[in-house]
């Protein structure tokens, strides 16, 4: 297999998913693509992780304990230093109202977990990273309250 680290250097992804078995496989596949992945199981932990490093992309589940994915997204988009970070919602929720709300709150894309294959999902991730306004670079940090 081609060395993935030679293909996609420097892209950081923050993965927010509360189901451990899903987080594990998503991280495995994203890491195999050559991305640097930080994984957390809640919106609160995601907010903490943003204090250490600003990712190029946040992959966000919605159905999370305590702070929901929607609340996290709202908070992110209201934050001056973080509002430009691309967010890709990956959720089991597929109601039209959920999709509309996710996109209105500023997510770049809304993907329903079972609607596309893993390789299709990885293609979307690759595209969003290419479009990302933050270029691959050394550690960026932002003042996160």
């Amino acid at each position, binding site marked *: 297999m081609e060395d993935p680290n030679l293909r996609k250097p420097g892209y950081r992804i923050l993965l927010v998913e509360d*189901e451990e*078995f*899903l987080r594990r*496989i*998503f991280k*495995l*596949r994203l890491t*195999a693509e050559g991305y640097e992945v930080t994984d957390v199981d809640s919106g609160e932990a995601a907010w903490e992780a943003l204090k250490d490093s600003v990712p190029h992309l946040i992959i966000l589940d919605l*159905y999370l304990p305590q702070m929901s994915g929607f609340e996290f997204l709202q908070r992110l988009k209201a934050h001056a230093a973080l509002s430009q970070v691309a967010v890709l919602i990956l*959720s*089991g*929720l*597929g*109601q*039209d*109202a*959920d*999709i*509309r709300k996710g996109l209105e709150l500023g997510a770049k894309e809304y993907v*329903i*977990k*079972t*609607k*596309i*294959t*893993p*390789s*299709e999902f990885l*293609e979307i991730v690759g595209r969003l990273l290419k479009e990302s306004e933050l270029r691959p670079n050394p550690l960026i940090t932002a003042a996160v309250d």
Partner: protein
Amino acid sequence: MKDEFISIASHQLRTPLAGLRWYTSTLAEGIAGALSPQQTELVKVMENCVGQMTTLVNDLLDVARLDQGTLTLNQVKIQPRELLAEVAHTLESKARRLQVSLLITEEGSLCPPVHADKALITEVLRNLVDNALKYTPENGVVKLSAQQEGQSLLFSVSDTGVGIPEDSVDKLFRKFSRVENPMSKRERGSGLGLYFAKGIVEKHGGTIWVRSAPGQGSTFYVKLPL
């Protein structure tokens, strides 16, 4: 209440199913290590079963959305050509795997934009293309096109597949209607995709129909008002 039930059911069904799909695909692609030929064969069967279960769950949830009557359209301006490219893009790898050519004919580039719910119409077209791939043998062709017809936009998805028997055409858009696929190794549909497609197209004020003959392929048409 019904909304909330569907929403929770959707999440609870999709979570383990997504796990199955991702783990199976990771095994099948050799990302967790190379498989023996026999293991590869077994994992392929698993992938097929997971694919069928996924289609069924997705379609059941879509139909629940449609039948509960609360589905509202979020209509935006869509460039037909871009829409077709997006649909083709998501099914490219499947077409390659089945050795079927997936083509977009050029008329689409001349079409005016159409006002439609992008997510739902994408799903309708994706459904039609996915069906066409399922029923088209190796070395066959599936073509997507869009063209203006007076005050309407006409999308079409044609294939060189096995075609549909005359007595099945009428019931094709009913719930749980399914045409037997002579290519038994291909995944089976849920029998709900075309029912959903019809409901969505009609909600847009459009129409959907098919022209087909056994052995001569099928063409599905979706006409939307401009």
